[in-house]
């Protein structure tokens, strides 16, 4: 019977290709949407877990770019006085603060990394944001010659890398966040200020101002006695010449975005699934009808009902396996570019898509294809197995 299943699929090429294509498209859609959905959820969850700052203080003239501000200062040369730190420190509910200094965006030609990146200075002594994202356990205190790389740089730890013609020791790498942080090089804040001052073509610092008195952002950790929203609200009336961004708002906005996108994805997926199932039901019914006479013949020459049932289900499951595998592989290949597109468009933080997730979604895709095809074929299989041989032979289509 397995031989007949295989030959029915291989020698009825057009019918089989159509059925496999419908299955493959369904599973492609499922795996792709599943992957994007899971990755986005995972990304948000991981981001929230690692979120060190409850609020960020930035210059009043700077653009408040939601998600980017969760980890670093804005990638723009807007600065405020270091005195802001002292003022912020005195505000109610503040547990920790840590300054950051954005130096510049540099292109790949100046460094060993071959991509555009940002140079940001931070204070390792007071920092609580960058440390929480470090993926090295044996992190040692930074020196002036050390740098920490964002999530897009890999396999540099312990090596020497050239940045702006200066050799640095790579002291650590950060987890990917899906933000500009991944393309950021962190170095000690004083070194970043010095680089900005020395850059001949930059001219971004106010004339005559000592850069050591400037900062781009203050990351704020609250002690729990006040919510980030309340802190941001109170900040408006504090008289400090800066603006405060509550990360609660950012995360909430992301969650709202994600929930909306999730609903859209789920809705589209459900609709596609329904269409695909109906199409497959139609396919299997048509296949069974086309072969009514043949099935009658098989029953007449001694093929049992259960064997006819197994024949139809076997064909459906074999085509489901082929379609499911093809759809899963195609989706796996498309997932990365699609996620990049979504990340760029929505500023969402997708987590890293790893091989384990790929295998899981592929297996789920194949299992789903088997379930869909089984459900779509079961009615045809039962009907075909129940055919009265004489009726099938005399009323079936003539082959």
């Amino acid at each position, binding site marked *: 019977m397995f031989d007949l299943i295989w030959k*029915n699929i291989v020698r009825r090429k057009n019918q089989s290709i159509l059925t496999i294509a419908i299955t493959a498209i369904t599973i492609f859609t499922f795996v792709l949407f599943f992957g994007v959905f899971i990755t986005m959820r995972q990304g948000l969850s991981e981001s929230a877990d690692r979120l060190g700052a409850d609020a960020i203080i930035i210059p009043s003239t700077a653009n408040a770019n939601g998600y980017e501000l969760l980890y670093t200062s804005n990638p723009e040369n807007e600065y405020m006085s270091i005195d802001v730190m002292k003022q912020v420190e005195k505000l109610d509910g503040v547990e920790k603060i840590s300054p950051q200094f954005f130096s510049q965006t540099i292109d790949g030609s100046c460094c060993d990394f071959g991509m555009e990146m940002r140079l940001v200075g931070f204070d390792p002594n007071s920092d609580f944001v960058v440390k929480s994202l470090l993926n090295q356990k044996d992190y040692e205190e930074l020196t002036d010659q050390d740098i920490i790389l964002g999530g897009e740089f890999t396999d540099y730890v312990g090596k020497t890398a050239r940045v702006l013609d200066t050799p640095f020791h790579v002291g650590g790498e950060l987890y990917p966040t899906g933000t500009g942080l991944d393309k950021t090089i962190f170095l000690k804040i004083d070194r970043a200020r010095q680089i900005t001052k020395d850059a001949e073509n930059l001219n971004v610092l106010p004339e005559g101002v000592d850069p050591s008195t400037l900062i781009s952002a203050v990351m704020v950790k609250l002690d729990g006695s006040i919510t980030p929203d309340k802190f941001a609200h109170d900040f408006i009336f504090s008289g400090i010449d800066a603006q405060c961004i509550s990360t609660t708002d950012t995360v909430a906005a992301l969650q709202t975005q994600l929930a909306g996108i999730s609903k859209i994805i789920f809705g589209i997926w459900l609709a596609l699934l329904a269409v695909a199932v109906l199409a497959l039901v139609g396919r299997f019914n048509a296949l069974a009808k086309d072969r009514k006479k043949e099935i009658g013949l098989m029953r007449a*020459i001694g093929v049992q009902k259960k064997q006819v049932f197994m024949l139809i289900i076997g064909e459906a499951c074999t085509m489901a396996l082929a379609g499911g595998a093809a759809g899963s592989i195609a989706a796996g290949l498309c997932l990365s570019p699609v996620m990049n597109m979504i990340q760029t468009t929505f500023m969402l933080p997708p987590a890293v898509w790893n091989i384990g997730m790929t295998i899981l979604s592929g297996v789920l895709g194949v299992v789903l294809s088997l379930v869909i095809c089984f459900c779509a074929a079961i009615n045809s299989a039962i009907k075909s197995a129940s055919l009265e*041989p004489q009726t099938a*032979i005399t009323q079936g289509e003539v*082959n």
Partner: protein
Amino acid sequence: MTVCKLEHISKHFRNGETITPLKDINLEISKSEFVVIEGPSGMGKSTLLYVIGTLLKSDGGSLFIDGRNVAEMTDEEQTSLRADKIGFLFQDSNLIQALTLRENLEFAEKISNSKKDCSAVDEYLEKLGLSDRADYLPHQLSGGQKRRAMVARALIKNPMLILADEPTNDLDDVWAGKIIELLNDCCRNGASVVMVTHDEKWTTNATRKYSLEDGILVKL
């Protein structure tokens, strides 16, 4: 030895009006008999074959095959009976489309539980002049070749009872004669044949002849 026995078999079809192609049919077929049923088209000859072959349930009467009452057999048992002991030759050309000629014969041979020392596929392909078409799919065969293939498929499992519905359709006289001779050989080897035909030319070797008229079997 009785191979097949029909007692008061009747069959009705209701399609607006009630048609009764078989009325109180009584027939007993013994081993090695060649029974011919003649009559014009549409008189119920094929229906009678389908009933004898357990493909169609009668509405009245009893059918015994190889001593067993078919009505008391399960569907599975009836299917096994068809696989092992009954060889069908249908009126229409009817082969499994995804299998080559050889594979169609092998399929029929495999389904049957009759154990043989070696496959008879090549022997039947040779006998029916189909050796050079063995690897062709049904749609690549002519009507006559398909008819001969169906004969091979019916006979390959050495059935106890052969039910042949117009077996000479689509065949020229040479091949039709050879098919009838093959059926006669089967009878000589112990099988029983019930053949339906409207062409008297092929009935000369019949043990008995009947005509089906208005649902009643009349011995000729």
